[in-house]
């Protein structure tokens, strides 16, 4: 366990280093964008370079970055001069509810349809479910999102996360209902594009499990089908699904860039999308740091869960 924890920390450090250098290797830079105001002069470019510390050698910028991180300082956004930690926190608050809803419904639906498909393998419902899952998985997110947007125009909001034109605050429950209504389309898009992978992995894993001797024994003993499936087979088939869930949950924090862009959802995915265009290095470093840490931590948790699900696995 300690070994795994140590490796997780090393991975985070390596990711921090890669995040720092990766964005700086990209062609283009923050000053190119931010100095594009009418009658901009070389003086403006120089002022911005100095202000952002980009006039210093890369290694010095890296050391400053590490030092700041060690003190819990993620830096100041180039684009709007606000602390990155504040901006990312605000974005996370918007992202997590929507992406959680989409991902959790995808997991539930995917596992459920995967189990049913495996249990009824070869039947018409199995074919229908598998083909639907493959199709949904194959849909480009932006296409599916736009189709839903057009299909539900007038019924559900086209963008944002609440009714924006209210000059006075609305009551809490009314606001909650409003946010829920705005959340439907992005969450459904995310759910539809994600659930297919859960269906297919669960089905495959279940088919393997259902072929095991102990399942045959359970049948021979006359146990009801529901009990065999849910009590004996599913638990053992869950290991690969848990890995997939851990990965997906990690990306909850990273947001769903395309979904947030299509539905103008003001989350962390959208923030990263804008930051890449503006070469806002502090925002990019901060966003990818959160993403990296959350994926690594959730995988670590998945490892812990493995021990519980399968006592044969040892640290």
């Amino acid at each position, binding site marked *: 366990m300690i070994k795994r924890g140590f490796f997780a920390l090393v991975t985070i450090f390596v990711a921090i280093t890669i995040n720092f250098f990766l964005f700086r290797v990209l062609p283009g830079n923050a000053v190119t964008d931010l100095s594009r105001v*009418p*009658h901009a002069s070389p003086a403006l470019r120089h*002022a911005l370079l100095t202000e952002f510390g980009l006039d210093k050698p890369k290694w010095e910028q890296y050391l400053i970055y590490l030092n700041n991180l060690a003190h819990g300082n993620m830096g100041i956004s180039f684009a709007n001069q*606000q602390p990155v930690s504040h901006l990312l926190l605000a974005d996370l608050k918007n992202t997590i509810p929507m992406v959680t809803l989409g991902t959790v419904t995808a997991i539930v639906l995917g596992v459920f349809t995967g189990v049913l498909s495996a249990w009824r393998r070869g039947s018409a419902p199995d074919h229908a479910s598998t083909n639907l899952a493959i199709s949904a998985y194959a849909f480009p997110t932006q296409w599916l999102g736009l189709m839903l947007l057009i299909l539900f125009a007038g019924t559900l909001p086209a963008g944002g996360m609440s009714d*924006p034109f209210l*000059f006075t605050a609305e009551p809490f429950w009314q606001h909650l209902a409003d946010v829920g209504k705005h959340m439907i389309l992005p969450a459904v898009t995310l759910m539809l594009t994600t659930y297919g992978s859960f269906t297919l992995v669960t089905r495959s894993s279940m088919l393997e499990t259902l072929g095991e001797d102990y399942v045959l024994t359970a049948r021979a003993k006359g146990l009801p089908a529901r009990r065999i499936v849910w009590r004996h087979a599913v638990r053992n088939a869950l290991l690969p699904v848990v890995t997939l869930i851990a990965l997906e949950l990690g990306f909850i924090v990273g947001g769903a860039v395309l979904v947030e*862009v299509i539905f103008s959802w003001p989350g962390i995915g959208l923030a990263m999308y804008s930051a890449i265009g503006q070469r806002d290095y502090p925002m990019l470093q901060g966003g990818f740091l959160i993403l990296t840490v959350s994926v690594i931590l959730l995988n670590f948790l998945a490892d812990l869960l493995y021990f519980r699900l399968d006592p044969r696995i040892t640290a």
Partner: protein
Amino acid sequence: MSRLRTHRPAALLVAAATALALAACGGGSGSGGGSSTVQEGGVFRLGTSSTIDSLNPFIAFQSDAYTTFEYIYPTLVQYTPSLKIVANFARSWKTSPDGRTWTFTTAPNAKWSDGKPLTAADAAWTFSTIVKFADGATANSAGYVAHLKSATAPNATTLVLTYAQPVANVLSQVQQAPILPEHIWAQYATGNGKALKTFQNNAPIVSGGPFILTKYTPKQVALFKKNPTFYGQKPHIDGFGLQFFQTTDAEVTALKSGQLDGVEVPVPPTSVATLKAAHFQVRSSPGVAFDDFIINSSPDQQASHKELLNPLLRQAFDHAIDRQAVVSTSLLGHGQPGSTIIPPATGSWSDPSIKPTTFSLDSANQLLDQAGYKMGPNNLRTANGHPMSYTVIMPSDRASEYGNRSFQIIQADFKKIGVQLNLKVLDPSAAYDALTANNYRNFEISMWDWYPLTDPDFMLSVLTCNSFDVWNDTGYCSKAYDKLYSDQSAAMQPSQRQQVVYQMQQMIASAKPYLVIDYPDSIEAQSSHWSPLAEVGGGSFNSMSIIPMDTVHKA
């Protein structure tokens, strides 16, 4: 992202202009309306695909941030729909005979929204502060105060701007500068002025314009309430809201489904027919932007494409662009073939003698033959020992609009004259860096666009040698051109300045660092439940005027 997004440009008089011009002339506030039949009240809901990056004018660079400043802060002057500069906070002005001193008389008894006096001293403080920190904290606003030596306010209603030399475009410069409340901002203008950029200026903001920004939620909405203390004529509406969208598809869908009352430019040409069918007011009027073909003009460019400097080749390329096909296919008819770098929609600064080059593949072939570029195998010509095959750099935002379609048309025609074009799409930041890399030696050709300001000074400055690595995207540098640029900057007589501006356009039309392809129309759409928004400079929501939101009312 277009190359100049911070300020939307100026355009021709449009449909709603007649009534609005009445409102804007005569040195009044620039606000109009006042008819007894006008229905007061309501909140106008506008969708935009731009954003507000910061509410601090010394940080912001996105177009909607500048538009916000236009509506919440006073500016000395503003544009009318007919592109005349008229009074706003300044009620009148005069120039000294040597053109170096400008004296503005400002609105008396004006107040900020917190009740504090709004006087010429606020204006003087704003201009002085920009000058003081022009190389640092206020560098992004330094363009408003070019050549300004000092700004003083001898009394509450008099502002005196003293320049180091005569400046022809003082009014268009000061039009862009929001006047800030000194009593709020002065505490940050100390030392090296760095604190001017750390102040976030969050809503609600102490405002002096027709509206107060009461709420701003990043990436979601900005809400503006009518300012009861505004020195000019009060708006008819109670307020307006600006909702931010990431895609025009979502924006147009929200308009169609009644979640918005209007959408800011640019409405995609492909949406025009459906919006009209749904009974929305759709306005397609001559735009001030232009799409261009950039040919590397650096005399030091790599030998592998140095033939691009040959005037015959440039003429041939110009003849090989089927501008009419681009307009009808790419823009679906919503545009005009391009000719000069000062678009006709910006008014009298555009040289009417420069016409779109005729499309003729025969002429193009003859010119290339004349240049000695023989047709080789596979119908590909050879120049200086290498095949005439060029990479065309295009920014991704341009490609995702209609740039790809335009490129395909041009590529097909170039193939017929033995020239191969290969598209390379990069994001805007990377694209600009690719053009300027290695001191402009590397790139061959690019396709991009420009949103010039109404005054020609900025667009003309782009091609000066001083603009290298800042705005210059061609590698073009000519001392003769730079001399003319200085001349027009100091020409105080409009007719004299116009002649120089025409001469500069002719130089560029001849040297061809840009081949101007087209002028896309400015397309806007709004609900018929409201009076048409006035259009000023290619759009009804920009930093050129407060007239659109000041005059709009329920239909």
